[in-house]
């Protein structure tokens, strides 16, 4: 195991950035989101929850798929280049690391999404255990250990810096690259203490031990017509805050943009909460907000597990809990409809 001090961290990051794109939490006007490293970026590894999840690293909010040009009666098509060089994502929390597994289920199952696959192949994930969990966290409900990040490299906050442990081959390579900033050290005791502290704190959080009774594989019939959906969704604005801050939501729309020189076909995130989601000639097959609201949670808690060996597509990151404008969220749904608290 290695150690890196807080003071050395900027140098390490700069060294990584010299070799590859580096995507990490950056603060802007007090708000932290994942962004690319730049010399004057305010890197923020202390904030627990970025507003947007790191899923942009593999599945950006919008990306061009290909462009068409017309020159003198001839049409040419230029597909967008696939990611072909390694890049690093730094400071990913354990829940968000699990979210990548959820996305993999969607984008890597055959036929695999080439754009996503290329990014996933080249992306190196450096994760960071949750030093100070928050009240909105409920990762434990989905069996995620906030003290044990599963990524290429795992980090823990210790005394005056971070413990660094490579967990995969990709992680080893990255470690090699930044070795000069790391000092080899036996930190087993400190790390164990940090893990213990994290787990104790997580247990104190109000939503850590939600019961998932009534949810999961095979619960479609039981849940679908529950009258509670109406009251739960009454206040839903149909905005995309939950979807766009969610690390696992994977719906997208494909659109064309006329640039004047040609047409760009791009895809961008979409939200099942939107009234024009999957709009067809006959309209949206979910005409009321209640149906859209139900879809989102049924998908996370029932349909996705149904199709993915019981894997929930919620990781309990709690972003939607904090960000929903009207305080509606998946925790309320689980609690009010799940039978027990």
């Amino acid at each position, binding site marked *: 195991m290695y150690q890196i001090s807080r003071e050395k961290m900027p140098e390490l990051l700069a060294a990584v950035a010299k070799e590859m794109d580096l995507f990490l939490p950056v603060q802007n006007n007090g708000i932290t989101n994942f962004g690319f490293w730049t010399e004057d970026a305010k890197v923020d590894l202390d904030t627990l929850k970025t507003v947007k999840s790191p899923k942009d690293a593999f599945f950006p909010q919008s990306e061009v798929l290909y462009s068409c040009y017309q020159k*003198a*009666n001839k049409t040419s098509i230029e597909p967008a280049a696939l990611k072909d060089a390694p890049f690093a994502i730094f400071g990913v929390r354990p829940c968000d690391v699990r979210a990548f597994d959820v996305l993999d289920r969607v984008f890597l199952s055959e036929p695999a999404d080439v754009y996503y696959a290329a990014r996933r192949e080249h992306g190196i994930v450096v994760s960071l255990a949750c030093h100070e969990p928050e009240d909105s966290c409920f990762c434990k409900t989905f069996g995620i250990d906030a003290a044990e990040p599963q990524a290429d490299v795992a980090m823990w906050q210790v005394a005056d810096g971070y413990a660094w442990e490579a967990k995969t081959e990709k992680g080893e390579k990255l470690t090699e690259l930044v070795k000069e900033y790391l000092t080899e050290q036996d930190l087993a005791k400190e790390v164990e203490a940090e893990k213990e502290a994290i787990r104790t704190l997580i247990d104190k959080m109000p939503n850590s031990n939600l019961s998932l009774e009534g949810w999961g594989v095979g619960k479609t019939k039981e849940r679908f017509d529950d009258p509670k959906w109406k009251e739960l969704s009454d206040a839903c604005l149909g905005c995309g805050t939950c979807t766009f801050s969610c690390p696992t939501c994977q719906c997208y729309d494909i659109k064309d943009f006329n640039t*004047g020189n040609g047409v760009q076909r791009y895809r961008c995130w979409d939200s099942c909460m939107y009234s024009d989601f999957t709009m067809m000639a*006959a*309209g*949206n097959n979910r005409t009321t907000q209640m149906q859209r609201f139900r879809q989102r949670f049924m998908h996370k808690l029932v349909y996705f597990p149904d199709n993915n060996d019981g894997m929930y597509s919620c990781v309990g990151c709690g972003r939607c809990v904090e960000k929903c404008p009207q305080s509606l969220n998946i925790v309320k749904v689980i609690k009010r409809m799940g039978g027990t608290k």
Partner: protein
Amino acid sequence: MQRIGVFVCHCGTNIAATVDVKKVVDVISKEPGVVHAEDYQYMCSETGQQKVIDAIQNEHLTGVVICSCSPRMHEGTFRKAAEKAGLNPYQLEIANIREQCSWIHKDMEEATEKAVILARAAVAKVMLDTPLTPGESRVVKRALVIGGGIAGIQTALDIADAGYEVDIVEKTPSIGGRMSQLDKTFPTLDCSSCILTPRMGEVNAHEKINIYTYSEVESVGGFVGDFKVDIRKKARYVDMDKCTGCGLCQEKCPSKKNLSEFNRGLSNRTAIYTPFAQAVPNVPVIDTANCIHFKTGKCGICSKVCAAGAVNYDQKDEVITREYGAIVVATGFDTISLDKFDEYYYNQSKDVITSLEMERLMNAAGPTGGKVVRLSNGEHPKDIVFIQCVGSRDVTCRGKSYCSKICCMYTAKQAMLVRDHYPDVNVHVFYIDVRTPGKNFDEFYRRAVEEFDVDYIKGQVGKVSEAPNGRLLVQGSDLLDNRQIKMEADLVVLATAIEPSKDARKLATMLTASMDTNDFFTEAHAKLRPVESPTAGVFLSGVCQGPKDIPETVAQAGAAAVKVVGLLAKDKLTTNPCTAESNPLFCNGCASCEKVCPYGAISYEDRQVNDHGIRETRHVAVVNGALCHGCGACTVACPSGAMDLKGFSNRQILAEVDAICR
């Protein structure tokens, strides 16, 4: 798939000298959608037009772009040609490569490049053109004139003489209006009723004119060519058909002490009355507020003395609905209230009167038989003071910011007449400016000064009060001599500002005709369409549109009549097809569009919609194509983009923008 044809005109050398026409044809022919492109010397010539027609027919074109001179020049020409070829005329666009390109640029390369871009923009637009058909609506061959003063009378006569039916609605018991109250008219000093009464008779006798006196417009529906108007005929309690106008009822009526409206309250009338001797129709009405029968259930004398049995106490208001093709507003004016002008002592003294009261005083048929006397004691006055601009040109909340226009002249007239009839009376006129723009007007005013020795004082009166001897004390300033004047007077005449009739605002709302802040009706265009309201089919006559004197009123009345006749002469109205259109699926009924529409063309309806499977009733905007002029104000007021303009749609303009910025 669209099939667009582009035709590039050389315009002799007008275009071809600066724009490489061949190159334009070459480049534009490669644009997607363009299947035909050619150039020709003169596209607007017979041969040129034939080329367009042939191409439309042979190439089955769905849209045509002509690159030529301004559309203001030949758009109509080419649209007709397109129509001849079987293409909808509105699927043709012009790219202006002459006025806006070849004529202003010298560099051939630059001009050619710009011509191509303009052509592309036109192609982009024509691609999104939809066939438009002008609608048709009927024209009811009858006009309504609201107001029976000289403006309404003249308009009605001119329309009727052209052979169309006219209804006049007048709210008082007789037509005649303000002019019937006047004594003499400036600058010729002929007697007002002598020239008006024959006109009133003519109207009454005209077989095409129908008069509804003592009636008011209750509601207006419909639109140009096809208005539906409800008219309330107030109960007169005297049968119009039976009454012979003998006047016996008025002679015998015991309720005699009611103020005469016609004489501005300077004399009394009976409860059953005709406002004045020459009233048309000469049928009295019963003023129920003062009639003893209506107040107590007793009396009934008029009914008893009426040999014709015309008095009918059970008569009720009647509302009739009539259809009209055009409506003329001729609602006239009143003088403003002087309640806020205590300095002139009007409410305090009987000897301070308005100029309109002065007219009645001077009139031989007036309350004093034409004798100018002090109303407080009936004595002959020695000094009379006229004060101009009372409430006019006053920007405070007390008065009117505008010039009432007629006061200078009638004051000169009244002053002159007083001096003429009573050479012993001293007449002083306090003025700010004397405004006499009119034929023989300044000469008239100078006569008052030079021949009749009227004393004109440049300055305003600050205060009128009562002198200890019971006369009036007038305190004013003489700005030219820089002195303050205090003079005694026996009679003070106030040239009171005029304002539009109080009821006009209500009427404007019914007609959706716009008004200015002073409640004058707004004309469709201040210079070019001065007798039309912006609301199609509504015309303006007389002072309701702005202060004016009798000759101007009569001239405008005639002009309004011509406009009406021009409208009624049509059998059908073709409506401008480039009108706004609201998509009920996107409309949220917020009414922003309705507020900015200058023509009242937008109304709201509850409509059943099927929005991609959601069926519901929505309160949505509906555009009346017959009223819409296609300005597009509503399209921008609409936040959701539900409102769009045919022929200049959002998508079309955006496509032009895209083509230009490409």
